[in-house]
C-alpha cells in the first residue's frame, strides 16, 4: 500500500484553463480511470486522488488560487473499512443458488 492516507479530492474551477493550470503544476499521480472533467452548472470538476503531503502542497500552490479543493473521502481508510463488506465463502457455491438482480420485476 502507499505510505500514508490518500484522499479523493474534487478540484473545481470556473474554467478548464484554471483546472489545467492546477494539474499541470501539481502533476497528480492519480486522476482516476481517465483524466476527464465533468460539468457542474457553470463549473468544471476533476476528481484527483492525492496523498496527504500532495494535498497540503496543492492547497498552497499558486494555481490553486483558481481552483477550490474539496476532500470527498479518505480512500485509504474507506477501502480498509469496506474490505469488511466483501462476501466470505461463496454464496453461489450450490448450483441452485441463482443470483437475483436489484431491478423490480413488474
Amino acid at each position: 500500500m502507499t505510505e500514508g492516507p490518500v484522499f479523493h479530492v474534487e478540484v473545481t474551477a470556473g474554467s478548464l484553463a484554471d483546472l489545467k493550470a492546477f494539474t499541470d503544476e501539481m502533476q497528480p499521480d492519480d486522476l482516476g480511470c481517465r483524466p476527464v472533467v465533468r460539468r457542474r452548472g457553470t463549473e468544471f470538476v476533476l476528481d484527483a486522488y492525492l496523498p496527504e503531503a500532495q494535498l497540503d502542497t496543492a492547497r498552497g500552490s499558486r494555481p490553486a488560487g483558481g481552483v477550490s479543493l474539496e476532500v470527498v473521502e479518505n480512500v485509504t481508510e474507506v477501502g480498509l473499512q469496506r474490505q469488511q463488506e466483501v462476501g466470505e465463502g461463496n454464496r453461489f457455491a450450490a448450483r441452485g443458488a441463482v443470483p437475483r438482480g436489484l431491478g423490480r420485476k413488474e
Partner: protein
Amino acid sequence: MAYLNVDEIESALENLAAAYPATTELITVPNLTHEGRQTHVLRLGSTNAEHDGVLILGGVHAREWVPPDALISLAADLLEAFDRGTGLTYGDKGFAASEISQVMQSLSILVYPCTNPDGRHFSQTADPQWRKNRSPNGAGCVGVDINRNFDFLWDHSVKFAADSGVSASADPCDRNVYRGPSPASEAETRNVVWLLDGSPRIRWHIDVHSAVPIILHSWGSDQNQTAHTAQNFLNSAFDRVRGLKDDTVYGEYISEDDLDIVTSVTQQMDKAISEVRGVGYGVEQAYGLYPTSGASDDYAFSRSFADSARTKVYGFTIECGRSFQPTWEEAEDVIREVCAGLIAFCLAATEYSTSG
C-alpha cells in the same frame, strides 16, 4: 448483502447459465490470469448469428468494486424478467416488458463482469486502492493497467506530444497507469481482444468503471474534429504532436454520422440514469484535460479503421457512482443506475440494428 468476491462472480455466472439454458451460453475465455484464475463471459439474449452483439466489461480496474456486481445484477435481471415476461424498474425508471423482450430477442449480449480477478482479489483482501492486474514486471514491481494495454496508440511516448500529459506510463513501477511491455501483453487484455476477434457481430462495446460519475464517448486521444480525415490515429505524420488541448495541428477525426450516433446513445443512457434517483451522470468526450492511450473503448472503435475487414464497434465507458468502494447500501443504488443506463444502451443499439 455484501460485495461479491471473485469466486462468487464466477459461480454466479455458472448458476445463471444453468438456470436459463435457453437464453444463455457460458463462454470460457482462453487466457488464465497470472495467478491462474479462469474467467467466464455470459452470453445472453438472441442466438441468431445475424443479430448484433454488445460486449459489456466490468472489473478492468481492481479497486472499482461496484461494476462487477452491477453486471451480475444486470444479467440476472434481464434473464429473470424475460423468462417471466415482466418489465424492469430501477428507482423511478421503468422498462416495459416489450422493451426487455426487444433487447433479449434482437441482441446477443456478452457480459464479462470481472475482467481482472487477480487485481480485484488483491484489492478486496490486501490493498484496497490497487488498480492494475498482478503480473510481475521485474525490478520487484507488479501490475499492468489493463486499460492502458490495448493496441490503440499504445506507445504513448512516440504517438503523443511530449507535453500532452497523456495518461499512461512506460515505468513498470508506476502505481496506476503502467502500459505493459507491449500491446496486449496481458492475459486480461487478450481475453477481451479474443472476444472481439471471435464475435464479428459485436457492434457495441461498453466498459463499466467508477467513480466520477460520467458517460464517455469516442475519442480519448485528442479533441474530436469532423473535417480533416487525414488527422487520425493511424497517420504517423502526426506522431509526437497528438494530444494537445485546443491546438490547431491535430484533432482526432470522427465522421459526423458516427459522432451523431455516439452522442445520441450516450444521451439516452444519461436520461435513463437520471430517472433512477433524479440525477444524471452527464456525457463527455473521453478526451478531457489530457489524452489517454491504450484504453478498451478507443481500441474497440479503432479496430475497423485499422483493418477494414473488421466490424465497426462503437466504444464507450461509463464511470458510475462517487466512490470506488461505497457502502453496500449506496452501491445498490449505483447498481440500479448502471443497470438502467446499460438497458438504455442496449435499446439504443437496437435502434441502429444492421440485421433488419
